[in-house]
């Protein structure tokens, strides 16, 4: 059973990563990247690494996404 959960999470991870890459709107890409970090956080919590999961959630989903959105607000939102 545990193997299935792993494979589902990994498949979800890869699909969200592809979505981040293909998405033209940078704000949407930043939000998707925040989702990517949360899926990663869940996977690590399941893998028995609570410290790392918490850090990835707080820093990866939190701070990185806020900084990317801030930079997008000061530059251009659309990727040509």
């Amino acid at each position, binding site marked *: 059973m545990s193997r299935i959960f792993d494979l589902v999470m990994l498949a979800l991870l890869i699909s969200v990563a592809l979505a981040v890459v293909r998405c033209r709107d940078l704000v949407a890409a930043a939000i998707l990247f925040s989702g990517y970090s949360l899926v990663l956080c869940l996977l690590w919590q399941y893998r028995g690494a609570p*410290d790392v999961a*918490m850090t990835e959630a707080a820093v990866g989903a939190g*701070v990185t996404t806020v*900084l990317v959105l*801030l930079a997008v607000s000061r530059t251009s939102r659309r990727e040509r």
Partner: protein
Amino acid sequence: MNRLLASLATAAVGIPMLAGVAQLPRVGAPGAPVHTHVAAQYLAGSPDATGAENVVTGVLLNYRAFDTFGEVMIIFAALAAVLAVLSPVAEAIGMPKDQPSGTEHARHRRAPPVSPIVAFVLRLTAPFIIAFAVWMMLKGHLTPGGGFQGGAMIGALLILLSIMLERDNLWPRVPERLVRGLQAAAPLAFGVVALVGVGLTGAVLALPASPAGHGLRELMMLTLEAGIGIGGAAIILGLFLAIRGD
């Protein structure tokens, strides 16, 4: 043409990786060297050797404290770097006059007002976020969590508060020397603990392991956790304010 080149480069890196990774010990195999060599010693000797039931914090603050010192220096270097790149280039000779930063500030001040719902929810949850972050910082060596996770949480909260309070200029004017002191809290904590460690145990970054020194070891670990937390929060807020253009 560019896409072909990129996919060739990616394949040139990816395929050897797959080949190499396939022969690694099976994922989760208990007999793998990852579990039998150094990690086994850490897990076996952890509570008394390092004074931390959370072995990851024990590794971060005791066995490999020098790594964490390097990590703390890197996040400080990021703050120095961002401020070096984005500080206004006003009066350097021969430099085109940068756009007057005055308009930059005005643009932020006219940012859309924060909706009352967000303001109320934030005022309601702020104390709980702080309580949880401080608890995680100070209990980091017993339960999952630690200095940096608490610091990141307080940093995120300060970012939210800065957006909300700055609009109706309640944002406190903190003297610059205090700000720079808080931002250097983590390297300072490591410097102090290293010196005290040399005094007590004769080795840099060593925490006193003898039963008599357990109380002192606990205090030194808390100093490190608090330094990392406060330093991390101040730096994350500093990064946010710098990239926003203050």
